[in-house]
């Protein structure tokens, strides 16, 4: 019994070590979306380019889509823009934009100047769809399957590494299952 007690500190150190080690490298600011496995929330919002056209959740039916949340007020969105252009042009990825809490003029100027990687852009000046999607900071990128169900949410910029290591595997997985 006495001898066992001598090993107690070692045991405690090991357990604490394992628990703490498991936390290394985890970014606490990246939260898993509550919407994973649920369909895209219902919405009815204007198209950024054509204010007369209303867009809704049927936009996500039929093919795997990336939904990219952006705004001209968001510096990180500018960082990822070239990569989104690369994805749309080189990789042929189907990207839908969600212009979040922005104004139309600025957004159109931005797309004019930097290029438009989006098949369609949803104009959400008051952030209602963003709120329903649980967006808490742009940029965020959702992977949505052909049935309109959210499969993954990436918080932060998309770049080549994120694409290859995170988004592409999810998309391949979604395609494989669908």
């Amino acid at each position, binding site marked *: 019994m006495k001898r066992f007690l001598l090993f107690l500190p070692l045991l405690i150190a090991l357990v604490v070590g394992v628990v703490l080690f498991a936390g290394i490298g985890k970014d*606490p*600011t990246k*939260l*898993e*979306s*509550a*919407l994973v496995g649920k369909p895209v929330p219902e919405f009815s919002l204007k198209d950024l380019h054509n204010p007369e056209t209303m867009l809704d959740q049927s936009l996500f039916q039929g093919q795997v889509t990336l939904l990219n949340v952006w705004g001209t007020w968001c510096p990180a969105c500018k960082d990822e823009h070239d990569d989104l252009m690369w994805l749309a042009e080189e990789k042929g990825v189907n990207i839908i934009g969600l212009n979040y*809490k922005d104004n139309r003029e600025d957004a159109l100027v931005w797309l004019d100047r930097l290029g438009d990687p989006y098949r369609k852009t949803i104009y959400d000046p008051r*952030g209602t769809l963003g*709120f*329903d*999607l*649980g*967006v*808490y*900071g742009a940029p965020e990128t959702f992977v949505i399957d052909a049935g309109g169900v959210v499969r993954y949410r990436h918080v932060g910029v998309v770049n080549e590494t994120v694409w290859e290591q995170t988004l592409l595997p999810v998309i391949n997985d979604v395609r494989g299952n669908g």
Partner: protein
Amino acid sequence: MVRIVCLVLALLLPALATADVADVYDFSDRAQEQRYQNLIAELRCPKCQNQNIADSNAPISKDMRDVVYRMMKDGASNEEIVESLVGRFGEFVRYKPEFDSRTFLLWATPAIAVFGGLLVVAGVVIRSRRVGQESPALSAEEKARVDKMLTDEDKPS
């Protein structure tokens, strides 16, 4: 007269200050406002990690406060309001997570720690009692020696 006016104005100043803190929302009564304050105090801001939405200036917290207020006005219960936010932002926004298989350890740790502490205390007490019984007080001969020593010490040498 001027003095009285000044005094009255001075007395009104604190009222102004509290009016500023109480946001821009209108409540029918004090209880409603208190309910609102409790709700926003126990909801966590997803953007700023360790602030509740009452404290946070992040735009998302403002949106969340708006939704809490609107849902309250529409007659939603506290559970409905919290559930609707959890449905969007995840379990993270709850400062008091539900008791389920994932949060079991979180809730049980204090009880486990107290129980463990009690076990240790009980162990120490039992062991000291046992030691006390095994080596009882001094034998008569030893006692006599101790008494002698003590009395000797009292005498000046």
